[in-house]
Structures are given as C-alpha cells and as structure tokens.
C-alpha cells in the first residue's frame, strides 16, 4: 500500500471506511435491480428519486426530472402541482440528502464504472456545480413553462431536458435506435442526442461523474438538503491527525477538510476512511456542546 499521509505516518484507514468503500458498488448494483425491473412498469405512476429515464424499456419508476418538466409544461393549461413528486423528494432529501446519488443512482453508478477505466482525472473548480441549478431552473422549470404558455405540449418542445438528457439517450434512445436499426428503419436518435451521448461517455472517462458535477438537476436539488438532512457526516476533531486523507479520497473534489455537508457532495462516504468523519443520524438530544466557530469566523 502506498504511503498516503506523510504527516501522519502511523495512520491506518478505518475499518468502517474500507467496508463502506467495498460495499458501495454492490449496493449500487443491487439498486439497479430496483430501477431496471422488467416487470415493474406498473410503477410508472410513481416518481423515483434517482436520475433514470422513464422511457427506458426496463424502467420501473418515473423519472422525477421528466415528471417535473412535464408538470411545468402542463401548468399553464391545467394548473396542476406535483404533490407526490414534491413529497417524495422532500422525504428522501430530508432523510438522507444526496446519499441516493452516491449509493442508489444508476446513472451515477455508470459514471463510477466508466471512471474506473482511466486513472487520471481532470479536476474542476467547485463553483461549476452551480450550473446544475441553472439547468434545474432554466431547462426543467422555466423553459417548459414558457413554451407551455405558448401552447406547445412538452412532447413537441424542440428544446427540452428530455431531448438533451444523456441518460435518456443511453437508456431509451440507444435501445430503441438499435431495435429500429435491426428492423431496417434506420437510426432513431437525432444527431444532437447521439453527439451528447458520445461526448458524455468520453467525458466520463476523464472526469469523475461529469453529469453529477455539472448538470444533474436532481443531484443539485437533493444536495440542498445536505446541510440539514437527518443522515449526515460529522467531523470529530479528536480523531483528526491532519493527514488530509479525507480530501484526497473525495472523488467529487469537495474541500472536505473545510466542510463536508455541502452541495458538491454525493455522499459516497469515501472520506470516512480517514476516521475523523463519521456517518451519523441526527437525533433529538439535550446538553450537546455547541459547534466550535467555523474557520473563517472572526475571533
């Protein structure tokens, strides 16, 4: 094993961190069985909580982002609000924040697997993560709503999240195009969507989870809960030996040594390998000591 902490030579990775790191791919693979259930299409009336195209021939639940965009486009005509979707996202977000991104999302799992093929990764500045909120507000809510006001149904909107989404291209566009090609009807996917799919696959080889970091509106939404969700990561200063292993292990480029429950985190829990960060559940307790002041607070 390579020396991982020059300023903490005796520090060994925690058993919990190693166990979680080994367990995560298996949990992700297990969740694939939930989202790709061949007999589960009757669940299409329920939005899921992960990024997964509902047009995929094997998808069980409905894509929450697709449902949100459809509701936005329908709002000018029908004035309906997605109570079920808002409720489920609140429920999942308040319970675990973006834990589902790191442990349950099939599209995140695919990007994790692609990322394992190449050792070196391009690093990105953290502020680029705010583009996810631009996608959420612009492509998922405002644009469908504006075009809906003009009387264009979501299915006929030329520019929409579903027409640009690489998950849709991979999980629905690709199988249907292959089936169409086999039947002699040609390639179904548009050139733009095919290009988006190929660019995404190429980028995922050299950047860890590019979709999650830059564009995923669902990940951005769930990450908003990271600051107060019941499940969270807690820093234990007594265990910290300043080895910086937590930050070194973070595949998302989060500055874990400063704060960990932030919007850039997908809660893969790789940082728990250092021992100073522990996964825990908020519980109503009394008499807890107050948090020490943050790093940049005035003395």
């Amino acid at each position, binding site marked *: 094993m390579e020396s991982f902490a020059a300023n903490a030579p005796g520090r060994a990775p925690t058993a919990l961190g190693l166990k979680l790191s080994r367990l995560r791919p298996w949990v992700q693979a297990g969740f694939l069985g939930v989202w790709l259930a061949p007999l589960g299409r009757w669940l*299409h009336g329920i939005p899921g909580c992960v990024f997964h195209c509902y047009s995929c021939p094997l998808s069980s639940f409905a894509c929450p982002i697709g449902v949100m965009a459809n509701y936005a486009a329908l709002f000018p005509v029908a004035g*309906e609000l997605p109570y079920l979707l808002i409720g489920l996202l609140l429920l*999942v977000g308040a319970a675990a924040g973006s834990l589902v991104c790191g442990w349950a999302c099939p599209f995140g799992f695919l990007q994790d697997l692609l990322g394992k093929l190449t050792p070196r990764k391009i690093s990105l500045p953290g502020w680029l993560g705010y583009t996810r909120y631009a996608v959420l507000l612009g492509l998922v809510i405002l644009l469908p709503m504006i075009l809906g006001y003009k009387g264009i149904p979501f299915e006929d909107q030329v520019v929409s999240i579903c027409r640009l989404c690489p998950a849709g291209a991979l999980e629905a566009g690709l199988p249907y195009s292959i089936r169409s090609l086999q039947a002699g009807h040609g390639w179904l996917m548009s050139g733009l969507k095919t290009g988006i799919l190929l660019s995404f696959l190429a980028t995922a080889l050299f950047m860890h989870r590019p979709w999650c970091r830059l564009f995923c509106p669902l990940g951005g939404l769930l990450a908003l809960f990271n600051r107060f969700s019941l499940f969270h990561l807690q820093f234990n200063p007594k265990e910290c030996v300043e080895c910086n292993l937590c930050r070194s292990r973070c595949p998302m480029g989060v500055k874990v040594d400063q*704060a960990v429950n932030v919007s850039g985190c997908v809660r893969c829990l790789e940082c728990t390998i250092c021992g100073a960060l522990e996964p825990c559940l908020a519980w109503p307790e009394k008499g807890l000591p107050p948090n020490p002041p943050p790093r940049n607070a005035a003395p």
Partner: protein
Amino acid sequence: MLRRIPQPPVDPTRRSVERHDFWPGFAALAAGAILAFCGARHVTGLDTVEGNSAWEFQLVKAFSTGGLQYADQLPPPPPPKLDAAANPAEALDRWAKEQANAHPPPWKVRVNAGAETPCPT
C-alpha cells in the same frame, strides 16, 4: 490504493463539527411524508378519456407513455367515404357544414391512462 494529494494544511480545532439539529430535518421529512400521502390520494382537475377524474399517479404515468391528449391537437373526423354515399356531393357538403359548426370539446387536456407510446419525446 490510498493516495494523498498535496493541499494546504488543515486546522481541525477551528473547524465546525457540522452536527445537524434533529428538528429541521424531521420537519422537512414530516412535510414530505404528508405531501406524498396527499399526492398519492390526489385527484387532479383533469379528466381521463373515459370521463372520470384522473388520479395524480395516472397523470404521472401519462407523461411517460404519451398519454396526454390536447383538445387543439385532436385530428378532425375523416371525410365520408364518397364511394359508399348515395349522393357524394351532398355527403361532402354535410360533412363540411358539420366541421364548420363543430364546437371545441369542453376540456383542454385529458389523460389517456391506456396509452403505450414507448418514448414520447
């Protein structure tokens, strides 16, 4: 393999432990549970093609199966078959008058719960 990347030194004594309070998370969780429960029992203001009110889960399913029907996108009824009509010109004239006097349907959008379009977009 575990590696350590070079980075600025950290100061654990000045860092927040990031302990989460229970009640904000619990309040959001409870609100989510109530909304999800209400959403599951919510009857929307839209009708189904059978004439009943559509449940919210029927509407969500219609999104993924191309099950929304817009009134302004309904195709007009086909013209009469002129070969079968006794007086083709009169039948065509009657059909044109019916089209001119046709009223728009009372609904703007309705839900076809039985739609099976594999990929609406």
